[in-house]
């Protein structure tokens, strides 16, 4: 779960990492007020996407009037597909130099990874590897100050910035660990008046660990529909095709999209009904697919924990309540396959056992519906 910049900075500040004075702004008046309080500001769109600056998501205001004017323009704008609803008005910093630092999990090494560069800023992705200092953390030890000093030295830092950077690494790792972060990133980590300050910040919290962070603000960056399906507890992503898809297991769901594409169709969504979903959430998920008004629906189930008869019951439940007014193709094999197929057949729904056949059929039906 991503945190907005202003939330991430709030957490950095709790851990004693310097941030610039700033205010959250949701109206032109508030923006004008912010300039009165802080002096010249950067107005930064609070959206969960990178490359915000280049896309016009960071603008400056010298006067309250200008602040109101800029905010008027920015609030409500679409930025890389995201609607801007909040701005963060931050005192404009006379940045001398931009560094980069992040702590994330290296899946291959299975360890936390601290990365830093003295060539920070928006171009960091283009910086060559030899300008980036990478160090893995032994999770049984964590990050002690010497670790930070060794990185500071590798970056060629000196004096005050050397010391501040060393301490910052310790704090940033504590955030990563104590907040169950997938990523905590400061870019740019600015040098202002010879001191370090976090000029931008990202913090992604591990969804699986949210239960132990009741104090962290909840953010769901999905579309309204995505949020609705997430609330049922299922993984869901909107796509731009016309064949709605439900499968069990993320890999199976991806393979189903692949199969649709393979036969020349276009999937409308990614929906993982879970490895062991029972009747109720499966029915709810299918209900959502119906509301999308696709040209066809493909349900692809290989029953392991998921029982085929449960899936069949969910399908019948949806058909008998909200109704399924689009062509439906069901592929059903595995645990309790016979029972499930029998249930569907009784209700006049054909069930395929071959995945390719089912996918091809769904694509065909969607084309006929054109």
């Amino acid at each position: 779960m991503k945190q907005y910049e202003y939330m991430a900075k709030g957490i950095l500040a709790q851990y004693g990492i310097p941030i610039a004075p700033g205010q959250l702004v949701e109206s032109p008046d508030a923006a004008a007020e912010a300039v009165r309080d802080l002096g010249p500001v950067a107005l930064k769109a609070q959206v969960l996407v990178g490359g915000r600056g280049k896309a016009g998501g960071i603008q400056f205001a010298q006067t309250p009037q200008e602040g109101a004017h800029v905010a008027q323009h920015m609030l409500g704008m679409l930025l890389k597909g995201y609607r801007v609803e909040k701005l963060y008005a931050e005192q404009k910093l006379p940045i001398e130099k931009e560094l980069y630092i992040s702590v994330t999990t290296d899946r291959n090494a299975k360890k936390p990874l601290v990365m830093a560069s003295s060539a920070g800023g928006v171009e960091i992705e283009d910086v060559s590897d030899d300008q980036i200092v990478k160090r893995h953390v032994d999770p049984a030890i964590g990050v002690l100050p010497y670790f930070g000093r060794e990185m500071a030295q590798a970056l060629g830092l000196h004096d005050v910035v050397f010391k501040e950077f060393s301490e910052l690494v310790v704090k940033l790792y504590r955030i990563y660990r104590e907040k169950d972060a997938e990523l905590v990133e400061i870019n740019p980590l600015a040098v202002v008046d010879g001191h370090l300050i976090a000029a931008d910040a990202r913090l992604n919290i591990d969804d699986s660990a949210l239960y132990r962070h009741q104090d962290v603000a909840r953010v769901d960056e999905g579309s309204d529909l995505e949020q609705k399906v997430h609330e049922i507890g299922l993984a869901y992503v909107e796509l731009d095709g016309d064949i709605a898809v439900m499968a069990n297991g993320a890999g199976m769901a991806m393979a189903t999209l692949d199969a649709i594409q393979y036969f020349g169709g276009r999937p409308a969504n990614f929906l993982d009904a879970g490895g062991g979903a029972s009747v109720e959430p499966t029915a709810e998920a299918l209900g959502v697919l119906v509301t999308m008004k696709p040209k066809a629906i493909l349900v692809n189930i290989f029953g392991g924990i998921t029982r085929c008869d449960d899936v069949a019951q969910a399908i019948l439940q949806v058909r008998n309540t909200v109704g399924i007014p689009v062509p439906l193709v069901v592929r059903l094999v595995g645990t309790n396959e016979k029972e499930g197929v029998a249930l569907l057949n009784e209700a006049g729904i054909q069930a395929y056992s071959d995945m390719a056949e089912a996918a091809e059929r769904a694509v065909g039906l969607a084309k006929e519906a054109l």
Partner: protein
Amino acid sequence: MAILLTHQDRVIVQGITGNQGRFHTRQMLAYGTPVVGGVSPTKGGSNVEGVPVFDSVKEAVENTGATASIVFVPAPFAKDAAFEAMENGVRLIVMIPEHIPVQDSIDIVNRAKTTGSTIIGPNTFGVISPHERSKMGIMPNHIYQPGPVGVVARSGTLSYEIAFSLSQSDLGQTTVVGMGGDPVAGQTFITILEQFRHDPATQCVVMVGEIGGSAEEEAAEYLSVLGKPVVAYLAGRAAPAGKRMGHAGAIIERGKGTLESKEKALKAHGAEVVTMPWQVADAVRSALAR
């Protein structure tokens, strides 16, 4: 023959009195797995499906000589369960739960390096060795059969799909193992391929991968060492581009993680890459014939 799990392993079930633990204990017993005990604090002395229940792994190991454990406790308690197994000398630990916090997985997987335990998962369907009539996992019993093919997969149902199609084509399996779908897991393609390399019964290996991460790319270089034919199917050709993990993700991946980069790397090292799951069986048959 098989890898990871053989009939010599004696298995305990941590969380045996929960719904899942109970159901899959029955399934594992039905398959032939020597489930010798279960663990459920304060339920010691009772039994589930005829299997004795103990209050702790320590007691279970002392009383049964268990060498392997399958963990079914809810995700918030999974770290505790894994450490309990590791610190009591259990050599093979299959972690079924999904949604285990990544920091907990990091602790588990790194501790295992010290204790010498082998962690499968978390968020895995487990491991099954049809020759040995033994499984530790949640896969359906009927879709596997003994044979010369090793299967390693990141995803559960997709591996069932492929194992089933192999079996239907009379291409049985030595061992089918799930690495687990979580970002940090005990095994990688490489560690599993190493095991298949040393298993004389395995004549061909099927890799079932996905977009994201760079596990497939890392594994590609090992294929030349493996010395056995590899068929790979990777899901995600039509999947939406993953949302990036800040600049850090871009720096780590540096162009890896896409389906193209994975397939390219695997092909470059001699793997037969197919584009649809139903093409796997034919490719395996051809590989075995060569």
